[in-house]
């Protein structure tokens, strides 16, 4: 609780007047001899020392008052004021720094969230691109496979037709041979072929 020293001087005269009055009163009493008479053996009540005590009390107390009001108390007041202002300034600075730190933390959070969003987008795109690529590859492979299958089927069908043609020729040969063996008379090739065709169509 710092106290300003400007008001101190104003009551200095008060103090001076008060102490002077007190000193005069005491000195007057001390100067009147025989007030306490012979019974003044108890030292604190002995008026013989009143004047000396008052005189030196006035001097020492005045010096003390002067030292306190002019030197010690204003100095202590300013020290404490300075301390209060220093603490206040430091607190302000700390609050400012804290605000800055919070701002930075927020910016960091924001950047982090953005980066996360970006990463998600990139991952999504990559995933989609990958899916598209693999789809295309699958389609191509499937088409290729289908083409190969069709080719194979065509080959099989041709082979089968060829084989069937061979079977017919062989059948007509065998039929001619059997007929000639049985009848001793060889049928004509066209007759045999017609018979085989008939049998094939039936079977």
């Amino acid at each position, binding site marked *: *609780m710092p*106290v300003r020293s400007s*008001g*101190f001087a*104003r*009551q200095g005269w*008060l*103090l001076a*007047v*008060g*102490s002077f*009055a*007190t*000193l005069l*009163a*005491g*000195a007057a009493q*001390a*100067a009147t001899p025989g007030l306490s008479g012979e019974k003044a053996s*108890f*030292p*604190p*009540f*002995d008026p*013989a*020392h*009143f*004047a*000396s*005590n*008052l*005189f*030196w*009390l*006035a001097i*020492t*107390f005045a*010096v*003390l*008052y002067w*030292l*306190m*009001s002019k*030197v*010690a*108390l204003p*100095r*202590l*007041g*300013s*020290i*404490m004021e*300075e*301390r209060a202002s*220093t603490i206040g300034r430091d607190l302000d600075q700390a609050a400012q720094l804290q605000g800055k730190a919070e701002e930075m933390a927020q910016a960091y959070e924001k950047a982090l969230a953005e980066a996360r969003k970006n990463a998600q987008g990139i991952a999504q795109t990559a995933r989609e691109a990958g899916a598209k690529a693999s789809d295309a590859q699958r389609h191509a492979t499937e088409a290729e496979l289908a083409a190969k299958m069709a080719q194979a089927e065509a080959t099989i069908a041709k082979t089968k037709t060829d084989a069937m043609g061979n079977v017919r020729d062989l059948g007509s040969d065998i039929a001619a041979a059997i007929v000639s063996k049985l009848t001793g008379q060889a049928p004509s090739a066209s007759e045999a072929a017609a018979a085989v065709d008939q049998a094939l169509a039936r079977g």
Partner: protein
Amino acid sequence: MAAGGGIDPIHQFHIAPIVELKLFGLDLSFTNSTLWMVVVLAVVSAIMVYGSSQRSVVPGRLQSLAEMAYEFVASTMTGVMGKDGLKFFPFVFSLFMFVLASNLLGLLPGSFTVTSQIIVTAALALLVISIVVIYGVVKHGTHFFGLFVPSGVPGWLLPFMVLIEAVSFLSRPVSLSLRLFGNMLAGHIALKVFGGFVVALTTGAAAGLFTYAIAPLPLLLAVALTALEVLVAVLQAYVFAILTCVYLNDALHPGH
């Protein structure tokens, strides 16, 4: 403790001149009482002036002590008188430190208690009351004497109330000075009496086995009394300061 006094409990209050000095027909000798006033001044100045000379924001021990005294008196004053009472701060502070240092230094063996002289406490009390009256009259004029006229009192009772208020006001310097003086005087006499018992029981004419056996009892009492006297020394300084604040408050705010 009392040089050559043996067990005379009054000897400690004797004033002996160290340097004779006569001025204007008055005996203004530099006495042992004066010496201890100077010691009090030196001790208080050492704490307050030297202690604050470092002006450090983080105080050392002595500066902490000085700041504690400063804040203690300042908070006591604002508590009693409010903020505007702080214009009397140096006065009340000097008074408090002077009385406190006198009381505490007086407890040192072989020292002299300045506040055990009634003329000293009376002078300090009169100084307080003079300041109250002078400041009150200068600041508030006749309004200051409204202090003696309590409000809300029926007319027929007013003269009695004014009389009572006036007597109570006039008795303030008496009670203020006698309280401090009496406490210091009685405490030191009691201490010296118990100390004297120990001396009498061990070295007196009737000293024997029995007296040796019971000699520790007054010694223990003297130790306990010393502790009590330290408390009384601080408490009386505080009481003196706070009553000064109460009286100054009347000068500042005379309205009831």
